[in-house]
């Protein structure tokens, strides 16, 4: 008997340090952009140069997945407040945080938008900490803890022509059990950058790069043609694990071996109680389940493409 606890650890507490204060208004010369993530929308008002930086970190998803979006959260970024070189981030006119470094502001804002989107969407979708891609309309779900190589694998698949859904925040329609894209950049850690640079030359120079938790992460925006043309049913649940020097292997496993990983990497199933559990079981029952040991990225991509072919 094994007990599986459901983790919410990925919803970071980026909002914990907000301070409520009087409403503020951005200067008139600032510009405004809308960010859409499925039915969630955020409006950002900031200097043009800052908006350009944010646009590189918040790629737009496919139009079909964002129809009917309404902006529910408004962020303003005030430059040189409270002093020169500082930034004040204001949420919904009243809640604010200060930053001394531009990169901290950018990363926090991206995280805050992803978190707000997940909160907004969690009643509509099943959420998993996983990567997701599809080939010929057949969806692959890669639930795994951080450091397992999800993003590198997904990037390799996208380079090989797979549709991109996400590298670590998966949204699944609970009634149809189909993947829908959660638009975000693919976060490539330093160790994978060299391997992926031949597939994505922009990783050498152009992609935004930040130091995050002791590692340097490059933010790879998917090209517009990488997005899927529609939702994809989950046909394969694959547990990926990068093991340096190991022989790349794809091994069938029982659904019950996949289930604990899936539940452990979910952040909305528990909220749904028995119905949530039934949806996850239905998902696993309808999918082929595998364990993927990745020693060589190209070999792993070939195995998965062959599977979907």
């Amino acid at each position, binding site marked *: *008997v*094994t*007990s*599986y*606890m*459901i983790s919410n650890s990925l919803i970071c507490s980026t909002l914990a340090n907000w301070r409520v204060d009087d409403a503020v208004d951005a200067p008139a010369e600032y510009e405004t952009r809308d960010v859409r993530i499925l039915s969630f929308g955020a409006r950002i008002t900031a200097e043009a140069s800052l908006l350009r930086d944010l646009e590189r970190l918040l790629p737009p998803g496919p139009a079909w997945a964002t129809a009917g979006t309404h902006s529910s959260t408004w962020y303003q970024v005030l430059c040189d407040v409270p002093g020169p070189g500082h930034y004040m981030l204001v949420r919904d006119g009243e809640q604010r945080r200060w930053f001394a470094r531009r990169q901290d502001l950018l990363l926090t804002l991206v995280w805050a938008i992803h978190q707000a989107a997940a909160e907004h969407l969690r009643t509509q979708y099943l959420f998993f900490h996983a990567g997701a891609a599809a080939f010929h309309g057949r969806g692959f779900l890669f639930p795994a803890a951080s450091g397992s190589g999800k993003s590198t694998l997904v990037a390799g698949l996208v380079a090989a022509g797979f549709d991109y859904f996400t590298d670590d925040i998966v949204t699944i329609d609970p009634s149809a059990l189909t993947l829908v894209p959660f638009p975000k950049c693919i976060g490539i850690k330093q160790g994978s950058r060299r391997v992926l640079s031949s597939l994505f030359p922009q990783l050498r120079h152009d992609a935004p790069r930040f130091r995050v938790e002791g590692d340097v992460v490059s933010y790879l925006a998917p090209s517009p043609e990488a997005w899927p043309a529609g939702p994809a049913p989950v046909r394969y649940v694959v547990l990926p694990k990068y093991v340096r020097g190991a022989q790349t292997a794809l091994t069938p496993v*029982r*659904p*019950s071996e996949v*289930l*604990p990983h899936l*539940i452990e990497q979910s952040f909305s199933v*528990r909220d749904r*109680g*028995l119905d949530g*559990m*039934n949806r996850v*079981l239905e998902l*696993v*029952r309808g999918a082929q389940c595998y364990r993927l040991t990745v020693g060589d990225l190209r070999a792993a991509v070939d195995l998965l493409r062959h599977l979907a072919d």
Partner: protein
Amino acid sequence: VSLQSHLTVTMSDHMAPQAHEWRPTPRPGVSALPLDEELVLYHPESRESFALNQTGAQVWSLCDGEHTIDSIAQEISSRHAISHEQALSDVRDLIHDLQQSDLLDAR
């Protein structure tokens, strides 16, 4: 290994007086959800899930208020061609875990 040994000792101490009489039954509200030939038990209050393999699922189906632990072990022993002692040990372990997880009715 030490945890398992501890559980076994604890269980033996606790179960010895009533083990012959107790006929385990599922706790009301616990859902048993099939997954191929295996089983997932869902506890409605803790919202935790527990996976049972094929043999565990058989034991669960025998926790029907009719079978004692000894008779469950007999059934498992005959189905899997293992000794009664081995089956009894495994069944006791599983039932203890199920009880600890609040999936079976209290005796």
